[in-house]
């Protein structure tokens, strides 16, 4: 890096930092002076609570699950997808039916849909786990189908036949 590009990079970095501080300042000022927010302390408590719950409860749980139980990458990937679906879908599952008299709010069977999605993830993981063996498995299935069809065709015939 030449001295000039280093200087430009430093200027940009300082500008970005100042912009960030300005944004934070604007947000904090607004939060403290908004006439509708009666007690900004509430927001602080909920923000701190979110951090404590996430870093002190949720993440240790994930790490424990990761180190103690799950070693296979595919299963791990499936659990990542399940965790995401849970984080996004759980509120709807919990609140299904609470529509304040507005049937167009939360109109779907969320628990069923959530369980369906979990099943879909399980199937996807199982299929991918079997993927290296798929060509062989396919051949085996095809052979099985051929054999069954052949025995079906050559069974003692009474009435209808499959072909001919």
């Amino acid at each position, binding site marked *: 890096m030449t001295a000039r590009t280093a200087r430009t990079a430093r200027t940009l970095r300082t500008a970005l930092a100042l912009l960030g501080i300005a944004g934070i300042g604007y947000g904090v000022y607004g939060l403290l002076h908004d006439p509708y927010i009666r007690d900004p302390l509430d927001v602080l408590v909920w923000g701190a609570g979110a*951090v404590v719950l996430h870093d002190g409860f949720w993440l240790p749980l994930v790490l424990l699950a990761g180190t103690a139980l799950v070693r296979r990458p595919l299963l791990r990937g499936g659990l990542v997808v399940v*965790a*995401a679906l849970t984080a996004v879908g759980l509120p709807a599952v919990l609140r299904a039916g609470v529509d304040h008299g507005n049937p167009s709010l939360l109109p779907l069977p969320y628990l069923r849909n959530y369980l369906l999605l979990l099943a879909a993830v399980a199937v996807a993981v199982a299929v991918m786990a079997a993927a290296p063996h798929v060509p062989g498995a396919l051949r085996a299935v095809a052979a099985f189908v051929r054999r069954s069809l052949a025995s079906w065709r050559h069974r003692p015939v009474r009435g209808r036949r499959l072909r001919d």
Partner: protein
Amino acid sequence: MRRLRLRNPLDVTLPAPPQALRRGPFKEGTFRSRLHEPRTAVVLGRWLGAAVLICFVTGLISHLLQQPPTWLRDHLPSRPVQGYRVTQGLHVISGIAAIPLLGAKLWVVYPRLFSWPPARTVRHALERLGIALLLAALLLELFTGLLNTLQWYPWPFPFRQTHFWLAWIAVGGLLLHIAAKAPEIAAHWRRTKPALPGRRALLGSVAAAVGAVTLVTAGQTVPWLRSLDLLAPRRPDLGPQGLPVNRTAAQAGTVTTPADWRLRVDGPRPYSLTMEELLALPQTDVDLPIACVEGWSASARWGGVRLRDLLDRAGAAHGALVRVTSLERNGPYAVMTMPHTYARDPLTLLALRVNGQALHPDHGYPARIIAPNRPGVLQTKWVSRLEVL
């Protein structure tokens, strides 16, 4: 003369706490995964940063459309017709995508929470404080935003104002974080070979997670994903007359319309019209989306009288601001003001019908406003009065 070099106060070293306190997760080697490393953090940080910035910009657009400052008010464009539908759809889509991205990013950098010593210098302490602020703001933003789409408000503060101010703290914190980490980000911006084993699998899982949550929720606004809409709080075709409702007539106290309902239009030449008289005026049909701030949207065919025809009849000046009053008593959107850019748009209607039928009470019977590129809460229902200001 010797120059006196003052030390930057940010670089003042802080005393390290006694080693005896270094227990539990603070001990070295607690976190065994190889993936708690900067390159993975940079890749995930780029994805998360993009999602957060899209979410911020689209949220700002929504805020400005909903509550414009006076200098901007008369310049808000009524086009593109689908504009708000797209930006607000993106707002909720990027916000939902940010949930697994933030989760993954925080997993990667989690060991840094227990770095030792906790603060080396004043700069380091401030940086960590900034990260705490960024994290708190982001977590609360995503949490309140997600629950708002379900109209679930378990917290003691108002949603809209808090969500708005926290967004500035979150994005400010993000910019500060990028500035603080700039050298590390630059050092790990490009892929190095050989690739770290397991990183691809992790990134693939996170991408799959983002894809999954997007596919099963985006159908509330993206028409061709509707059949996959499994976890979104809305389905664009479910509701009275095949359209969702944000606030019902029962909630607004407007289930029955006064028998003597007339549309009052106040201006230089005030007048009022009964429903028959309104229906006798030239009627227009337009295809317009109703796009809610909560992220769902649906197109419908609206029929009624062009708003500009009603305003012309009252002798309104072209650039006049219009105030629309609803029969609704206490809602925050019972009174709405509309700049001329919308009021004069040929697509803006005082709608009397939707999809060929008279409006359902939940959709604003006897009459509602429908305008292009406007948030749903400003498409005032149960209209009783128009005023030229």
